[in-house]
């Protein structure tokens, strides 16, 4: 049984399947997520696959500041992903609602609605930062599933580029 758990943990880490959800993004991050799968970055080396159905996915990648209309969809899609699962918030929008902060059509940030495991800040983030975020999320997911403990504090990826601004923006949140 222990051996099976160990094998399962390795396999979960090595085969993260993504489902990409746009919750009102400007498409900047969406393009970068797709760029992460192109020949230059080739995320498939890590076993990453973009899946068409949330039922097949392990990791939910959310872009966009979560508009009021998108809240129900985000929650439904999160519930449709079979556990163990992880959430990666791609870009500054799902983390802080970014430049749309005072808009009355928003109901963000993402953490208000579903638990987030990894933030990849940037407007948009670079594809390599996204790949790093997905790899971190896969690790979190594998460890959490084997130990059964929830991860409390989300990880922030891309320290060199985005993190200082990101921290400042999150502290400025009401």
């Amino acid at each position, binding site marked *: 049984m222990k051996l099976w758990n160990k*094998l*399962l943990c*390795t*396999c*979960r880490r*090595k*085969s993260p*399947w993504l489902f990409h959800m746009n919750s009102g993004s400007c498409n900047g991050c969406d393009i970068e997520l797709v760029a992460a799968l192109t*020949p230059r970055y*080739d995320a*498939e*080396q890590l*076993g990453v696959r*973009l*899946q*068409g*159905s949330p*039922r*097949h996915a*392990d990791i939910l990648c959310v872009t966009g500041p979560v508009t009021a209309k998108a809240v129900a969809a985000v929650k439904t899609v999160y519930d449709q992903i*079979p*556990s*163990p699962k992880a959430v990666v918030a791609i870009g500054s929008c799902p983390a802080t609602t970014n430049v749309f902060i005072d808009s009355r059509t928003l109901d963000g940030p993402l953490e208000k609605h579903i638990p987030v495991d990894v933030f990849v800040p940037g407007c948009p983030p670079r594809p390599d930062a996204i790949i790093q975020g997905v790899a971190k999320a896969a690790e979190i997911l594998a460890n959490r*599933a084997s130990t059964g403990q929830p991860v409390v504090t989300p990880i922030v990826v891309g320290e060199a580029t985005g993190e200082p601004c990101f921290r400042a923006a999150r502290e400025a949140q009401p």
Partner: protein
Amino acid sequence: MNLDSTMLLTALARLLIFPGLLFAVPAAWFFLWVERKSVALMQGRVGPPFMQPFYDFIKLMGKTAPERPGIAGLLMRAWPLMAMAAATGAVGLLPVLPTSGGFEGDLILLLALLEVPSMCIIAAGFSSRSIFAEIGSAREAVLSVSYNVVFLLAVVSIAASQNTFRLETLATLPHTPLRWLGIVALLVCLPAKLHLNPFSLPNAEQEIYAGPMTEYVGPELALWELSHGLEWIASTGLIATLIIPRIDSWWLAPLAFAAIVFGIVVLLSVVASATARLAIDSSVRFYWQCTLIFAGLAAVLAIASPILVRLKP
């Protein structure tokens, strides 16, 4: 031990050990990897690691599936099992080793078993009650009606021209031009049978979510992936059986078989990565208008040639 029990044991060994389940499952993972890797290389990428299909399978086995009460849930769990069982049976019938047995008419059984996974996919899509799965199933049904006519005509023409429906006899008979024509027709049908580009309509990734598989989760999805891999082996193995020249060596025959299957898998993956998805009407037109003429011609020639030979003064 009497004859019956020996035959039963041989059949069980072929189904469960070689070339059946024990051998075919790792082989299915290997060929799934070959497919993904060659698509990646065609696109100038590095591609997935060697063990990727195995990792995917184990990971999916460890996922929790939602509760599905009632007969619909039971059916949804049954379809992937049936598809996998049929595909394993088809692989078990392949005459990989020389003098491996078989019986008169096993080609017909192989064709029937090859058709079962496709029917299971159609039924699975409809029983999952997702609108995207239903669209995918409808497409699969239309596609299977169009390529199967060509596929069956090609097999019939090969079998009729060589006067046997026994796979092992077919494998040892000399190659005729008509047989090569049939092999080409079978190869043309394979992308549709295996849902590859340009005929990847039924599972059309992203376009209709995941097609008939949209609602499938965890272990069930893992079984679907595995049955897809077994289908790869069974259908490419059928063509390899027809292509392979007669080899009597016990170790060379399986090697040559594997090499030919490998070649076909690479060829299909290269075609898949070099083409774009066709619309449903173009796909159907391709099989009914372009390919059917050749397959029909082959079948007519195959049935007419013995009569013509007899009529010769």
